[in-house]
């Protein structure tokens, strides 16, 4: 040791040898392209004419959106009687759809915020589209509680705005917390999305061929130059927004779950709801991201930027969150049995689990009225994600697409099970009923897909669907300590 301190200082060059073939990670951008290629490819989607499929999809989406607004108009002009809601099920499709859509949004925030804090570089290829999905999904979600209040023209009473009656909202109600959670979620998601867009809007401005485009993109880019003094503040603000969005996203679906769990109803009144809802939300959101991006990467020829590795990683998150959801189901059933509350036990066995084929006859009980919804939910949310254990399935785009749709279907049924099954049979048998949706309910739900896809297709048309600056930043060409980034003595293998 004494000798070591006396040896003269020498410049040491640490050269790390490449990992053996087969252990090398797949690059985040395949093909070894330069950073200019990324601009050309991604911005190219939003420049020039859109392909034929876009036009057909847009026409269909706008039609469906019109149907949605038509249904709302019919509802407003006639009354909530046009829906299937009646005693005892007063929360019908509207609340099911609200909870489902708002859950969809959660994957976008998880990708943009939580994966950013965890330094998951692969998020850069998918975060922009996922955040857009969040915003449009929250828009679809927001419609439902608003029209569900019945007299829509009093919707503004939800907000603490002074009115001529001199009364204020009642803040002990979780429904009031929901108003704040959802409107904050929408606003913060929009801010985060817009801030991420600023450098990319500058890219679009600098590439614009016409004066109108230059002006339009220039206006929203706000004079962004790419100055490093600006980047310094920008990155700090991005980090803070990511941190705030993380605590936000965990709170939003927790508060949505409190709408249920603060009540006394069996199946609603449980403490597991908040984490269980958040896991379910992220699970369904990743299902939707996969449903959107798996076809898009092919249709828009972005396979080298949204690579198979990205799809695989998303499948793994789906598997993880799906398994958490499965565990939560198991816990619900266990507690229903172990807790000894007869109403809770009745709900889980007689109202949910009892199917007409196996469990019902075995236990000698009549099948539950909505047994099919319960089993749909268990198959889609517990069994389906387990397929993602297999690498062959994760890398098969057609299978991933089909499974991702089943994830969405399953999560919709979960919301249906929670809302409808708990409500339709409560403590008194004389108080029981059966809920079925009307055509207005169904068309309205389908119509929100029109709204969602109209906005999503417009997003593809006008804005870079992948965060150009962020993807550039994670390529080896952007790393000043990498030989591809121009480093003369690299600390890493080329």
């Amino acid at each position, binding site marked *: 040791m004494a000798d070591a301190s006396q040896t003269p200082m020498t410049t040491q060059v640490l050269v790390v040898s490449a990992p053996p073939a087969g252990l090398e990670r797949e690059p985040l951008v395949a093909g070894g392209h330069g*950073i*200019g290629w990324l*601009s050309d490819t991604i911005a190219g989607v939003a420049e020039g004419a859109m392909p034929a499929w876009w036009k057909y999809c847009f026409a269909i989406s706008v039609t469906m959106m019109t149907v949605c607004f038509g249904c709302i108009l019919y509802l407003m002009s006639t009354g909530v009687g046009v829906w299937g809601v009646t005693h005892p099920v007063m929360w019908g499709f509207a609340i099911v759809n609200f909870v489902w859509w708002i859950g969809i949004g959660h994957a976008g925030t998880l990708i943009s915020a939580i994966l950013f804090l965890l330094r998951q570089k692969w998020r850069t290829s998918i975060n922009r589209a996922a955040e857009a999905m969040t915003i449009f999904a929250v828009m679809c979600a927001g419609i439902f509680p608003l029209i569900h209040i019945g007299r829509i023209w009093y919707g503004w009473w939800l907000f*603490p705005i002074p009115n001529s009656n*001199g*009364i*204020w*909202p*009642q*803040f*002990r109600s*979780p429904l009031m*917390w929901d108003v*704040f*959670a959802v409107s*904050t979620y929408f*606003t*913060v998601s929009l*801010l*985060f999305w*817009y*801030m991420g867009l600023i*450098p990319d809007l*500058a*890219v679009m*401005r*600098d*590439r614009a061929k016409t004066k109108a485009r230059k002006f339009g993109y220039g206006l929203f880019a*706000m*004079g962004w*130059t*790419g*100055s*490093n*003094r*600006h*980047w*310094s*503040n*920008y*990155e*700090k*603000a991005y980090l*803070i*927004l990511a941190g*705030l*969005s993380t*605590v936000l996203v965990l*709170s939003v679906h927790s*508060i949505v779950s*409190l709408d249920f769990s603060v009540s006394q109803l069996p199946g609603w009144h449980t403490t597991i709801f908040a984490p269980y809802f958040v896991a379910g939300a992220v699970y369904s959101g990743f299902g939707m991201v996969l449903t959107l991006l798996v076809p898009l990467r092919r249709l828009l020829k972005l396979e080298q930027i949204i690579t198979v590795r990205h799809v695989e990683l998303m499948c793994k998150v789906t598997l993880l969150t799906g398994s958490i959801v499965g565990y939560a189901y198991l816990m619900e059933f266990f507690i229903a049995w172990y807790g000894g509350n007869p109403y809770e036990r009745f709900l889980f066995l007689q109202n949910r689990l009892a199917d007409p084929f196996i469990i019902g006859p075995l236990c000698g009980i009549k099948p539950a009225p909505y047994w099919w919804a319960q089993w749909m939910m268990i198959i889609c949310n517990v069994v389906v994600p387990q397929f993602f254990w297999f690498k062959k399935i994760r890398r098969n785009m057609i299978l991933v697409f089909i499974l991702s749709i089943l994830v969405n279907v399953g999560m919709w049924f979960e919301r249906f099970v929670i809302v409808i099954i708990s409500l339709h049979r409560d403590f008194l048998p004389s108080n029981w009923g059966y809920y079925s949706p009307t055509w207005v309910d169904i068309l309205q739900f389908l119509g929100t897909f029109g709204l969602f896809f109209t906005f999503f297709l417009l997003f593809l048309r006008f804005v870079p669907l992948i965060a150009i600056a962020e993807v*550039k*930043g994670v390529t080896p*060409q*952007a*790393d*000043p*300590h990498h030989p591809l980034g*121009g480093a*003369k003595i690299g600390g890493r293998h080329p």
Partner: protein
Amino acid sequence: MNERPYAILAEFENPAAILRAADKVRGEGFRQWDVFTPFPIHGMDRAMGIRNSKVGWFSFIGGVTGYATGMLMIWFMNTLDYPIVIGGKPMFSPFSAFPPSYELTILFGAFGALLGMLFLNRLPQLHHPLLKNRRFALASHDRFFLVIETNDPKYSEAPTRKLLEMLGSTHVEFVEE
């Protein structure tokens, strides 16, 4: 009329080159200069001698304001302006007032971060001499630019140009005001 150009602009091919150049330019004692890149380069803040961003303070003040707004608003509405007993519980409880206040903390904090960033960057700006430069459009594409303004006290035309060329710039030009 000031006939002097606005700045001297040097183009670099890759992030390592501009990082070295920035380090050197800071070492030379320039003050009115900046680096323009398509993405933030790791280590550039240190090379340029930029200190930790102050955006955090804006966000913090926003968050505190949001929380206080939420709590005070609910206390005022449900206790003072329209007191109404719900389930025999106290008029005001910080527990039931917490969720909306928590959301407002995040809302105001997020606005603080975004608006603070824009304020510190003096954005939106309607005009910037560099944005008129045709070559500079590549700063959002795949090139890296180092710009020294002519009103920098250390600036003098020939030596500054020579310095930038020596640092490995592939293209040096003057930007008009």
